[in-house]
């Protein structure tokens, strides 16, 4: 009886310590993973909330003897830094890579602006064109415009522009 109880107690004590150690390590690892992921998530949400693009101007180029024109939009970053290299462009509903010309810059810093040209548009005043500039955060700038006038004398006119983030409807 003299050594049995202390020996059993020692075995149980060591097992308990090892168990607590294992629990601590796994809890610490899980906490670190969740904490890091929460930081990333907060960064994503914060970036979405503090980003905004604005249409600050536009011009066009054409010739009177052709039926097509190019329109160039001036896009200004009114929020956090964005990466135009990661943007996608949706012209009249279709994802496009060839219709839209950009400068190919990697970053658009707060307050900076860039030009974006949509090429070879028909001078058809019955058609309302739309372009969605979808940014890397999921939010986008939508621009709608149409040609006003006839093929020899006219110009494009922007109807509306809106910065929006898709939300659960």
């Amino acid at each position, binding site marked *: *009886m*003299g*050594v*049995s*109880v202390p*020996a*059993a*107690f020692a*075995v*149980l004590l*060591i*097992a*308990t310590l*090892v*168990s607590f150690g*294992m*629990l601590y*390590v*796994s*809890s610490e*690892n*899980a*906490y670190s*993973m*969740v904490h*890091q*992921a*929460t930081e*990333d*998530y907060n960064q*994503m949400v914060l970036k979405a909330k503090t980003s905004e693009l604005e249409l600050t101007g536009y011009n066009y180029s054409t010739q009177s003897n052709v039926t097509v024109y190019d329109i160039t939009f001036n896009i200004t970053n009114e929020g956090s830094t964005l990466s135009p290299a*990661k943007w*996608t462009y*949706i012209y*009249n*509903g*279709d*994802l496009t890579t060839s219709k839209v010309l950009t400068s190919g810059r990697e970053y658009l810093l707060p307050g900076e602006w860039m030009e974006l040209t949509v090429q070879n548009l028909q001078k058809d005043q019955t058609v309302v064109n*739309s372009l*969605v500039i*979808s940014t*890397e*955060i*999921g939010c*986008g700038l*939508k621009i709608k415009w149409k040609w006003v006038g006839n093929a020899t004398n006219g110009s494009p006119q922007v109807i509306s522009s809106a910065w929006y983030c*898709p939300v*659960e*409807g």
Partner: protein
Amino acid sequence: MASSVVSELVLFIVSLLVAGMVAGGLYVVTQDISGGILTKGQDVAESLRTNFEIINDPENIPVSGSSYVFYIRNIGKDSFSFDPNSVVVMIDGSIIPPANLTFDPSGVLAPYEVGKIYVPTAFISSGYHKITVVIETGKRKSLVFEVG
């Protein structure tokens, strides 16, 4: 005297065996719990890092052949599975059978990549509708759109 030593020895061995069994049980249960904590942590972290958006122009849903095309952009930090077996698509709350859906690319959607989901036009009449996409982590996004 000799019997006392033997009984003491037996008692010692039995107490060690009992303690060892209890310690073994404790170890197994603890390992199970710690494994569960780690797995749950990984799931929560993955869920937080996974995000996407439906980026279509709500007024212009493109048609390809006999299907409407919906653009899904991965805006999260991790890739996620992108195929009919791991993504659920609902139109106005009704699930579109996976066999009717086509995914491009079919497999995995990497961060910042844009994938396409082709939904047969037979499931969408003209007017306003809501598409809801649910990925494997349970994250869901909806878009209200109009087709002419």
